[in-house]
């Protein structure tokens, strides 16, 4: 495999020539004004340290049974020379994946984690969107339609087609999303804010046709958080009026919101408007405590601020189920990620997925 080393040496030289900034471990830091090329950039970027393809959504079966789901594929590079190799069990990349389903009607939450090294049973193509981890896979099939195969333990199998109802958006500065003061705390952030979902759900051995909508993030970075940051809260909302909203709020050790926290509005045409932390507030109103991890999550949330047109808003986030925690037995990070609905003046105006991290331990250091 000598040529591999030579090749990576060449890449390194090129990188130097372009004067790409690097983390102290030597991972490249996402650059400003990225020149994305699709579908290549839907695929993997193995030289960067962290990457994920993150789908959350809600759907209903023919009997109007309501469900939320999360399908997440992570990639971690173990060393900066890491390239996606052809080894059956590579030593350079790790793939983690989380699958979860919320069965609202029976108030059941099931999840499963998986951690594999790069190789025969887990891989992400660097050419196109084609990620797999065991029997779970996410693949672009034509245009920007995607096929998701997933399962949760013995009870759930999902076979979904996801097709964009709206074009993808690039958050931040043309796709570069800053997450902190440190120059390395940044990511490339590509999102499909509204995907039409259709397919089959096999639940407890019974197959059901399902329809719904989903949100997908694809983020690439080498260091997500600053050291002083302990975690983040994130929410994606799909309003009934075909607009969307996304918030990430970075929290420091004192629990205060970081200046790099962001709210983004997406209008019907897909135009994004960003707002800083001074233009919105995220307030926890009620908590749920996990018996398993002991973490206490502020899952009843009030969001206030103003819309792009200046009108103020006051939204209430209502989880469809309280116990939607993934305990992180493999990844080591426990977090709450669950299906919610959004209410304004007691009226449901959209569906949401909320993520609350760093409530059991600080993520700043583990994700450095």
């Amino acid at each position, binding site marked *: 495999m000598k040529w591999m080393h030579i090749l990576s040496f060449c890449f390194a030289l090129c990188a130097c020539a372009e004067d790409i900034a690097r983390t102290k471990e030597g991972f490249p830091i996402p650059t400003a004004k990225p020149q994305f090329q699709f579908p290549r950039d839907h695929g993997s970027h193995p030289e960067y340290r962290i990457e994920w393809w993150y789908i959350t959504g809600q759907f209903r079966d023919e009997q109007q049974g309501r469900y939320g789901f999360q399908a997440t594929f992570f990639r971690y590079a173990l060393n900066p020379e890491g390239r996606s190799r052809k*080894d059956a069990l590579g030593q350079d990349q790790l793939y983690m994946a989380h699958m979860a389903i919320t069965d609202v009607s029976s108030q059941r939450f099931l999840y499963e984690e998986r951690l*594999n090294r790069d190789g*025969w049973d887990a891989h992400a193509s660097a050419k196109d969107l084609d990620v797999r981890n065991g*029997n779970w896979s996410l693949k672009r099939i034509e245009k920007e339609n995607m096929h998701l195969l997933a399962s949760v333990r013995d009870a759930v199998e999902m076979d979904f087609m996801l097709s964009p109802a709206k074009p993808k958006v690039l958050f931040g500065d043309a796709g570069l999303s800053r997450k902190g003061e440190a120059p390395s705390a940044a990511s490339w952030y590509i999102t499909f804010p509204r995907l039409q979902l259709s397919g089959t759900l096999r639940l407890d051995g019974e197959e059901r046709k399902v329809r719904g909508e989903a949100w997908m993030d694809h983020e690439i970075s080498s260091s997500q958080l600053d050291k002083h940051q302990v975690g983040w809260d994130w929410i994606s909302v799909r309003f009934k009026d075909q607009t969307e909203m996304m918030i990430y709020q970075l929290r420091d050790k004192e629990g205060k919101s970081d200046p790099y926290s962001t709210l983004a509005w997406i209008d019907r045409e897909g135009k994004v408007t960003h707002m800083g932390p001074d233009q919105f507030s995220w307030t926890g109103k009620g908590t749920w405590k996990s018996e398993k991890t002991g973490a206490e999550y502020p899952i009843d949330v009030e969001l206030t601020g103003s819309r792009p047109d200046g009108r103020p808003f006051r939204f209430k986030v209502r989880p469809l189920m309280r116990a939607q925690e993934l305990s992180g037995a*493999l990844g080591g990070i426990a977090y709450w990620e669950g299906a919610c609905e959004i209410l304004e003046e007691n009226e449901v105006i959209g569906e949401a997925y909320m993520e609350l991290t760093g409530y059991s331990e600080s993520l700043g250091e583990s994700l450095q």
Partner: protein
Amino acid sequence: MKQPRASSMAWLQFSRLSLRHARKAPWSTLALLSIVALGVAVFFSIRLANRAAVQGFQLFSTSLSGEAEARISAPGGSLPMDQLPELRSHFGSLPVTLLPVLEATASLPGTGQDGDGFDAEQVAVIGLDLLALRNLIYVREQAQYEAEASEEWARVDFGSQTQIHLTKALADQLLVDTGDSFPVILGDTLHRLQVQTVLHPTEFQVGASEKLILMDLPGLQSVLGLEDRVDRVEVILPEGKQRAALRKRLSAALQSLPTDRWAVDSSGNATSSAESMTEAFRLNLTLLSVLSLVVGLYLILQALEAAVVRRRSEIGVLLALGFERSWIRRAWLVESLVLGLLGSSLGLALGWLLAQAAVQAVAQTVNALYVSTTAEAAAWHSGDAALAFAIGVCAALLSGWLPARDASRSAPVQVMRQETRGGGIQLLDQARFGWLCLALGALFYPLPALELGETLRFPVFGYLAALCWMIAAAILCGHLFAPMARALHSLSDRSPAWRLTLSQLRAPTGRHKLTVAGLVVAVGMAASMDILIHSFEGSVTKWIQHSLRADLFIAVQGIENASNRNRISEETWRHMAADPQVSHLVVGHIHEQAFQQQSTFVVGLRGTGGDVMANFLWMNEPPSGFSLGDRTADGAIQVLISESFGNRFQLQVGDEFNLPSPSGVLPLHIVGRFADYGNERGSVVMDGEELSRLWKDSRGLNVAVTLKEGADLGLVRGRWMQEYPGLAIRSNRMLREEVLRIFRETFSVTHALKAIGILVAVAGLALALFSLLIDRRQQLQTLRELGFTRKGIRHAVSSEGLLITMLGLLGGLLLSLGMGSILIFVINRQSFGWTLSYRLPWWSMALLAGGVLLAGWVTSIGVAQWGQRLKGEISE
């Protein structure tokens, strides 16, 4: 008048008489109990030991992952990992965990420093994807999965070639703990392994006594030089309510796997392949244990029968008092039932203890013949216990039946003073039945083995023939008493004791016949086993002399069978070939190979000079000018097959067949057949270079080195031993000795059985003589009144015992000739596929004869000593 109930009268008889007899004669009661116990114990212990030895194969990964639903391997030996994605996509969205497994063996150095690595202890090294293994916590039931994600596993150094995890048992043996390192031989080289974690005994359900090393798969692959190859893939389904439904879908998916590339073992039982491998062996062992139980049954029968004789007068009194015969029969059955229950319980305990000892012997046999097993202790098995218990009780009842009938037929006390002569079973009086059995045996002899399923051929007719001849010999020998007495008649005039003895044998009682039958069977069994083993040894010796001609034989340390995963790297054997002292060498490559759903071996021979073909002991020699690597006109590879291969797969010279391989299906053409007593699963031999190419593995299992004329063997050996500490380097003589030693180990179980058989037969003789004397106590009194001295009586009784023994011995030896031929030409050939030349082990048989005679004589003297004091009934 009210009729008393039979059962209550039987109970009365049992409680008032039988129990009191037992109390009055505690030793004979104990003896009776121990006989039942011994029979049950032998049966039980052999089953337990057997089970333990087979369970030693239990693969670690399976215990790690819970129950694997199926195991997938390549029909052509090892499985390239680049085929695994295809396997994954074959299962689609089905939530199966696929766990690739690579197995190796590590030898623990410390023994075998003289290069004789046979004694080096072997432990299994399992290569698993340790990272993926953690995913299995989600495969288990919800309740468990959080707790099992052990902290230590998060620190695993993935892909390390030195970091290992080991079981508590092994850590304790090596006296190592986390952070320590220790040397092992892996592949052909010495490695230092560092302990990263010691697995807690309960962690991952590893058995407390298992000695295993666990290593990350890529690390083990690179240590062994087997990049991207595994032995098999374990298929695991998540636990839960849907498992049954998933299992159905999985089995459909498994069935649609193309069989030319994948071999599926979906029995769900990791030990199944080991089980099927040793099936024939275990069946034989079980049969032997049943046989020993039958002999035990014979003893019980004799013992109860003797008890009837002892208490005949009591029975007579009961009859005279108006007891009905059926009550008496019932009471005797109750007695044998109680005997069976107590004796069987005792037998289970004894059997369990015996099993602990026997497991070593069985494991040794299994190790030598098949694959390495780590069995150390036999665990209790309730199923086997229940079976042994039931058999013990039934045997006691069954053997109580004849004496019970006998008892109920006793004469009332009024005629009791008549001399009684009887005992034994009537069947033994039927000479015609004996001749019939002899003829039946001859009829069964030439019949072929019975096919039991696809993988098991069972020589049922061979066993039937042996059984028939055994019965025939047992019956017919009883009819030799009179001729023998006639032939020895002249001794009658020599002394009154001889006259008396010969007069007893002239008209033998049933008890005489039963005794001689027991001796005949025991001696016959023992001697025929001797004949088998001796013939085997002779053939093996001849084979060794023919096959082992080189000066030095090099193999990896440890058990010498194909299950030893260690191999000699190409670099090593090439380096040896280049040694200036070496004339030439032959490298043996070997792969385990599935063929027609059975496991066999492909062997490749690669010579760097000399005549590779000279080492074969031909049964069908290939045409002159043939050399390995030749192909037929249409491209089929020309191969040699071993005799057992031909027998197992019904192939002979001239046939063509297709063998799967990692490089696809190979057309093969058989040009020669050779004798090979090394394995019973058979082997196909082709050119080593071709094999390396097709199986993508150039490592050798062994290397036979011929040195140049004048080279110093000791010097070369010493030098190489320094250079390759992981290799066992043996001289020709050492190897021959070792092969024979392993061979003898293989038969270590049979010696124990032989001893038990003889012991039981001699105990039967003692019992018979006791009963005869009790039967004749009045006669003894008469003899004394006639002026017989004690010595005279002792002489008469002991010579009677000796003559019975001699007759039994003679009959047994005759029987053994026939049984030996059945064992060699029918049973052995049908179950192992080996041709052996019939050889009589004169020394061993003479020793056996001497031993039996001595045992018979000592026993007879002992009984006679006791009998000379036996008082007649005192009338007033």
